[in-house]
């Protein structure tokens, strides 16, 4: 089970990271590494597209919270694209819908 991670740099100043697959304690470290890598490359406006994610648990949430924290410390931001109720529900239950800006499409996310 590999996590798909695709970077799209064509929406400057935003970097879109499309995630595909299941995010749990096994695959979340790859997501964390990728976010760390993007920040180290000076990309501080990151949109994480979760539309291809079939499963996300608290480990995945933790990586996203960590990413948000890291980016905010660089005066940047991490926003999300997610419309699937199954994934949105995890953010809702944990109250994280109040912490993250969550958009319906990448276009909406980069329009800010």
């Amino acid at each position, binding site marked *: 089970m590999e996590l798909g991670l695709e970077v799209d740099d064509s929406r400057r100043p935003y970097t879109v990271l499309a995630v595909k697959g299941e995010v749990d*304690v*096994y695959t979340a470290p790859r997501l964390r590494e990728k976010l760390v890598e993007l920040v180290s490359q000076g990309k501080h406006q990151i949109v994480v597209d979760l539309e291809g994610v079939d499963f996300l648990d*608290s480990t995945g949430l933790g990586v996203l919270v960590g990413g948000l924290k890291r980016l*905010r410390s660089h005066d940047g931001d991490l926003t999300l694209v997610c419309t699937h109720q199954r994934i949105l*529900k995890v953010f809702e*239950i*944990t*109250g994280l819908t*109040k912490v993250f800006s969550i958009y319906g499409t990448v276009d909406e996310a980069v329009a800010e």
Partner: protein
Amino acid sequence: MQRALVLELDIPSSPEFIAIVRLVVASVASARRALADERIDDLKLAVSEACTNAIEANRSIRPNAPVHIEIWESPDRLEVTIEDSGPGFDPEKLSFPPPVTDPERLNFERGLGIPLIKTLVDSASFVRTDSGTSVRMTVFGGPVNGDDTATIYIDVSQLPGLPDAE
């Protein structure tokens, strides 16, 4: 139909096996219980959280011990138990993340698992056993049909190519 064991599963204490548990539990729940898809998704998430905790507990003191999963059925419910051989914990002493309006909230990247489990299933109990911790998660709902149960036992920890168990 009394409470009956449907399936037992042992997995090594390694993260790549959690996906198998999610698959097995979701398949059993979907095939045998009249549950809405959303409730099965909730159960999958709760199971993933519990397995994550169990693996971490085992790895801290008994890394070669398996995580033991059981699925039980009764006329009105499905129960999934997840047992580890770790050091145990006191469920009352857990610290929970601060509210989302508190900037400190961003410092809590972990520790969401148990509150999530409690919200996702109808009932969750966390019991210290002689050898570790047992988490029992219950989802209420009737059976899809009235077939007899046969117990299936799967020992994934004995698959070839894995590190030798002690």
